[in-house]
């Protein structure tokens, strides 16, 4: 027979162990956060093609490994948001980095373009990690792998600072490729 003190200590240890095991088992991002390279940097730019508008120019966000996000001047509805910076959590950075890894960004083609579409817009993503830098540009095309990374980035940003482009709109009838 254990004394009540012993029973309490055993229960406490079990709870702590379970919590640790839960966290270890169900939060892989945390597990991988430590794997984000020091030189990690991602930049996502959306820009219209063709007739420019003072209310619709290039918009971009750049996030580094430390979680510093730099926003360009952006336009939301009738409001103009000035260029700004914000700090993302390490987990958020880790999730973005994981998406890049999962989608094998460095294996994408540098350019996806539907030549039959005039005007519309484009997205451009540049990733630096582990000493490599790679840029991919999509023009009026859905590129599954690319767009999922963009969505992963946008999920970590406040709605008004998200970088959007036509291919992310579900109802746009763009041609679609996986990668």
């Amino acid at each position, binding site marked *: 027979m254990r004394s009540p003190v012993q029973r309490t200590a055993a229960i406490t240890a079990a709870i702590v162990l379970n919590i640790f095991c839960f966290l270890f088992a169900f939060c892989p991002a945390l597990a991988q956060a430590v794997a984000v390279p020091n030189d990690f940097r991602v930049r996502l730019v959306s820009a219209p093609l063709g007739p420019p508008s003072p209310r619709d120019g290039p918009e971009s966000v750049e996030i580094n490994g430390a979680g510093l996000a730099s926003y360009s001047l952006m336009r939301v509805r009738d409001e103009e948001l000035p260029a700004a910076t914000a700090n993302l959590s390490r987990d958020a950075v880790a999730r973005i980095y994981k998406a890049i890894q999962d989608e094998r960004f460095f294996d994408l083609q540098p350019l996806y373009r539907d030549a039959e579409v005039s*005007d519309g817009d484009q997205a451009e993503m540049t990733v630096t990690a582990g000493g490599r830098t790679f840029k991919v540009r999509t023009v009026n095309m859905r590129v599954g792998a690319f767009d999922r990374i963009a969505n992963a980035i946008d999920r970590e940003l406040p709605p008004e600072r*998200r970088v959007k482009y036509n291919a992310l709109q579900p109802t746009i009838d763009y041609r679609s490729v996986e990668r």
Partner: protein
Amino acid sequence: MTFGRLSGRAKVLSAMARWTAICAALLIGTSGVAQAQTKVIRDGECAITIIIPIEFYSQEPIFSDTVHKIKNQIERAWNGPTTEMIDHIAARADGIQKSETRTGAPAEYRATDRPKLNQLYRDFMKLMGGNPNCATVNCCQICVIADVRLRMGDDAPKTPGYHQIELKPDKDKDGKWVRSYVRRYQLLGGPQSTSGTGVWNAEDDYWPAWAHESGHLMGLPDHYHDSTDENGNTISIGDEGHANDIMNRNLAWPTENDFKEILKIAGIDITNCCKDPTRYIEVVNRELRTSYTAINSCNPDDINRQIAVLTAQRASIVPDNITLPVKYDLINSIDIQIANLKNALENCQPPRIIEITYQTIKIGIDAVGSCDRDLVQEVMLKLDAERVQIAANRSLGADEKFDALSAIDTMKARLEKALQDCPPKEAFTVYTGFEGGIWCTYGFGIPLPISLVPGDDVPAKVDQPNSSQYDVFRPTTIERMPVPAKADQRRTPLSELFDTNVPDTPKLPPVGDTPNVPSQTPETPKIPTAEKTPDAPKAPGTPKTPDTSKTPDTPKAPDTPPPTTTTEKPAPIPDTIFVKASEAVLQGGQTSTPLGGQNVKLFPPNKPDLPGTGIKTAQDTGFNKDPVECKTGADGSCEMKVDRNDRPYYRLPGRYGRPNNYRMGVDLPRKDGGVAELPKDGPSPGKPELPPGTNAIDDTFKIGDRTFMRLAFTFPYGPNIDFHPLYTPFLKGYETDYCRDKQPGPPLDAQPEPPRAIDNGLPSGTVKLHRAASRARGR
């Protein structure tokens, strides 16, 4: 869920547009397909219609107003000016600038200037009587019609022949833009599709891409390309030469090449319906340059003539088929120059004639002060001529004209008075010609200075003191001209040149009391030769205005111009010159005897102008009277009558209101002459010693290659002199003049030219000598 709502008016408009398109396609023979469903129809050699059928649908609620906003924007953009036209308009408009809005991008017109440029174009087209609702390329009218309709729901059947465009809200749920695009897979002969040819923003009216996107529906490609901005972002910038092409950016204009490309896709060649404008350009440029000369001359006649010429040219250019940008430049230049000319008319006031008269009056004031009778009379003549010009000048205001004429009359009265008050010389010199009635006593056409002695006899009758001094030049009809609006810019009236300091008599003129007039002539303003006259030049310097209260002699200007009607008035009594001609004898000889049969003529020292041709009588400043002459009787005397108005011409002293008598005594010599042929290439002939009192005048003339010498002699009456033996040793074949009576010439052998000159007293006729028929036959 899909919505589609059309108002009743929109339905009617939409139906009309469709029917227009269908009917046009059926009725017009020539048509082509530029891009899938877009139709290009040739309505005539120089008229083309482009119809863009567009069917809109949406998965969101959408209103028919949006569809019609789209239609309006497309049609306004494509039926307006071309980029080329805008370039011409902008080059001549104030405050229009191009700016580089993006890195490396060609200069574009500012969006804020767009409404102004479009309005200038519409104004111009309205002025030309052209159609501002269609484009004009190569003098062809190209009308673009957006045949729009709204499909009632995404799942409703698509209308064949219509581009299918989905309208989306301009922002997504995060407030981010949806960017318009057009899928062009029908281009270049691809399979025609009626499904999903594009997505346009439905509320894109601030910076709408609709007009640009419709260019794609007509088959045009984009005219921009990728570039990189300073942040490394990929952006679009206009292709070289397409900075202001609507296919580069929406807030620009279609280029002529855009239209040509659309027609080319449709297999239609655009006809050049324009005339070659070279001739117009040359003619207009010449007149524009001439206009600058007129402007700088400040001559109202020249300026008005140029205004008339340019106005006529403008009227001929407006309806003619000249390429629109060139027509714009021509009309714009003409308008600017006409404005400059009108500006010159206004700012060259007072006209130059007033400035000249201003100076003449100043000289007249000096002449009165100096008692210089010659100068006084010279000024009187000058004022007479200027009076005529001023009276005929139509660019002068009535008040100013009246003032000038009054000033002239006042000045002339003072000059007359000066002639009266200035003591005349005891003898005047007038120029007189004499000739005898027989050939050998003709004079030599040389006026001789003869002394004229004032006589004592004065006729009893004296003119009415208030009668006009000069009847020759009367004011012509003075039209009531509008009084200049800027009263402060009017020059000081000429009549105010006279104040109490002006000497009324020749005894006054202390230098310090000279009239209070400016010492220099005000400069007439020059119109700048720049294309535009920016501001009205300053009015000429105004002379210092004397105190008008000190001008008792200045006639008051009545409210109305001088009366224009004239009444017949008895001619004033002329001056009389009593001539006494005697035979000249050697000094110390016997007393001279009267010389009868001598024609005596008075010559003006300065030959007056003959009446000009093509000049109105009122402006004629020449002299159109017979000469003053008489013929001596057996007692050697005769009388010459001189109209008092003509006194200045002969330098006779003027006397206010009364005739003068003069005596002229002249001793005339005998005359003789002869002629001899000079030897060819020989030395100059010698001269004999002539008797005392004899003068010889020689002159040579040529007939063919032969040279002759004409000799004329004057010598005193007394013993006869035979010049033949005197000259024969020097001039072989010398012949003395025959001395016989005047005989009329044979018919048609000598006639004046023109024939009516035979009635003229002045020697203005030309004598034509015909060769004798018999001699002509003998050769």
